[in-house]
């Protein structure tokens, strides 16, 4: 498992970890039942505070991506299709947000944007 974190982006580190692990789960690099590295080991290897890794893991568990077994550690949860869909929707919404911001800056109307979206779908 590879995790790349950076101090120079505005994103908090625990969030970066969450995002990357979620991406791995969604893409299938991490399978159901795979164990995650221990919080402390992760902290040591990434050279960050264990409080941060704990927060990341708690977040993942809260959103349903992982389950923690007392005494054994954290494992990737069984794939919940609703959860996966929701995650994808969230990501799409983010990307839409970026596109809309750019459109506003460039003065491009919503209608033109919708047309571009349609073309993209048809092009696939």
């Amino acid at each position, binding site marked *: 498992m590879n995790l790349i974190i950076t101090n120079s982006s505005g994103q908090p580190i625990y969030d970066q970890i969450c995002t990357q692990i979620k991406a791995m789960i969604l893409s299938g690099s991490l399978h159901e039942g795979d164990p995650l590295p221990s919080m402390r080991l992760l902290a*040591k290897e990434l050279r960050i*505070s264990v409080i941060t890794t704990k927060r990341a893991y708690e977040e993942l568990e809260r959103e349903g991506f992982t389950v923690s077994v007392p005494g054994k550690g954290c494992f990737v949860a069984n794939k919940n299709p609703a959860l996966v869909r929701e995650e994808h929707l969230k990501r799409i919404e983010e990307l839409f947000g970026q596109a809309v911001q750019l459109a506003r800056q460039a003065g491009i109307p919503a209608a033109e944007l919708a047309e571009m979206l349609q073309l993209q779908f048809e092009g696939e």
Partner: protein
Amino acid sequence: MNALELRDICKRYEDFTLDHVSFSVPMGSIMGLIGENGAGKSTTINLVLGLIGLDSGEIAVLGENGPAVSPKVKAQLGVVLDEAGFPDCMTARQVGKMLRLAYPNWQQKTYDGYLARFGLPPQKPLKDYSRGMKMKLGIAAALSHNAKLLILDEATSGLDPVVRDEIIDMLLEFIQDEQHAALLSSHITSDLEKVCDYVTFIHRGKVLYSEEKDALLERMCILKCTQEQLKEIDRRAIHGVRRGAFGVEALAERDRLPDGCVTDRATLDDIIVYVAKGERK
């Protein structure tokens, strides 16, 4: 359990007072102690170790209340001070022998392992050691008797980045289980940013911040604005100001700032400097 608890400790000197300092180091964590020279970091550590007497307040080390630290608890402390402290005429081997006689849980194999790992010649007298080597010996000694709490007082100043990196690795290894903790006092805040879970900032004998390091660094930011804009902002949000020729920079609490402010990430160094500069106005 907390590895270390300080409750309202006070120590008065002629020209300096440590005033109601309180903080705790939970087991399984690393606490960084930061502040300017003379802020009270070493005084605090001296009080924890029983090197100097407390005027008031309580200290609990590994669950044992003061005032003095008993030898039983001291046997579980690994201490590295800024000056290595072993007599110059002794060799690393002799130091090991001496410590074996002093500590009930002395691990000779571990000690020898560290000597080898650090490349410290065991038969050379310490007066022939460089400063870095002496510090490494101090660390080897501190880690070779199953200590539960590690206390490092400016143990890494004067060491090159490679050595400091090794030491960070060892500290992270040290707290891999919940049974250990460490208190680090250092000026090299970049090291602390890598390794600490909690940070306590002592300024002129008082604790200004004592919280999770990441939370503190997220909470604070460096605000960049004009003199006029600064006036519009809630005074309570500003913790220190630096006025320049082309604008103003201030240490500020992110949450209390209005939207649209230009901000930068704050580092531990920034926090120390801005608070200090803020006072000098």
